[in-house]
């Protein structure tokens, strides 16, 4: 009898705490922007990616001078910069999503996010600089 009473008490207590836990801190009113970035970059990457891959394949057997000359033209340099930025933005949103899915401890999540964001900024800067160097140094 004693044990059944304590069981029902703990069940009632749990039912109350579950609703509180589900409501948590309320809605963050966030997530739409990231969803939009993911969608828009996905769309942009279809033509940009096709252009980039086709260009790389076309240059695969050429020498270094020809390849460098390709990025000396304004449309090519612009399209490659746009491709790199769209790809990195898409990758950042995707990686962040994976982290949020699986990393449930806040300190680890913050560290992982800083690393991913930092790496993205470094990669974006390095890629854009590399293209600009070839474009301006022709």
């Amino acid at each position, binding site marked *: 009898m004693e044990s059944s009473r304590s069981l029902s008490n703990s069940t009632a207590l*749990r*039912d109350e705490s*579950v*609703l509180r*836990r*589900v*409501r*948590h801190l309320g*809605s*963050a*009113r*966030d*997530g*739409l922007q*990231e*969803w*939009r970035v993911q969608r828009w970059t996905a769309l942009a990457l279809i033509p940009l990616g096709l252009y980039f891959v086709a260009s790389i394949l076309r240059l695969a057997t050429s020498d270094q001078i020809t390849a460098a000359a390709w990025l000396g033209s304004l449309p090519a340099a612009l399209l490659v910069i746009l491709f790199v930025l769209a790809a990195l933005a898409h990758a950042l949103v995707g990686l962040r*999503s994976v982290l*949020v*899915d*699986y*990393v*449930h*401890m806040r300190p*680890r999540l913050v560290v992982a996010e800083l690393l991913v964001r930092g790496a993205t900024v470094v990669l974006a800067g390095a890629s854009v600089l590399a293209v600009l160097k070839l474009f301006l140094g022709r």
Partner: protein
Amino acid sequence: MSEFTLPPNSKVGEGRHWALAQSAEHVKSFRIYRWDPAKNATPTMDTFDIDRDHCGPMVLDALFKINDQIDPTLSFRRSCREGVCGSCAMNIDGVNTLACLTPMDSLKKGTSRITPLPHLQVLKDLVPDLTGLYAQYELIEPWLQTDHPPPDRERRQSPEERAQLDGLWECILCFCCSTSCPSYWWNQDRYLGPSILLQSYRWLADSRDQRTGERLDRLEDPFRLYRCHTIMNCTRTCPKGLNPARAISNTKRLMNERD
């Protein structure tokens, strides 16, 4: 971090084999997950042999037969036995579905495996704890909300407006979809999951409801809504043939149209 393996006290062992007393012509075997909170033991898989010539056609009939004639301690939820109550949701041969709508003829030959809906706390045998899911259902306030006082007659809808609710009102909250969703497995404390989001869209799509904005406010959250990655296990598993993935993507579309 996410748990990718079972904790030690949940490792499943081999259980008892309940063989038929006399030989039968058509035999179907089930390996069924057993766990009793009163026994302080790890779960086991018990094997039950069923004489199909003395059993109804559905998996639920086999469970009834086990419960009536073989082992009365087997626990499972059931009520309507015709796919309108959603109680007998369980995992049959790796697929979340309703035992009452699954003919034994549709199962693979040999032994079939029955486990509770995945990634929920088990209360006993095939009975999972649905408290969290019901609390999430409460969160979305699943009832008609308007600023007007109730009219003397019914609230009217055009046939086209009513058609918007088709594919939504049929949901029976069996939670086959939510428990088939990897996103829900990893974040069920904060992600609402396909079943609750489909129910939520049922009220977003209702021409009589006047709280669409508030409902969207409540959902606009990286966890509550945007953990959906359109994996679409929900749509594949739904025993009622509904499409929770489309309801979620419609919700995201509404969210996008707000500014």
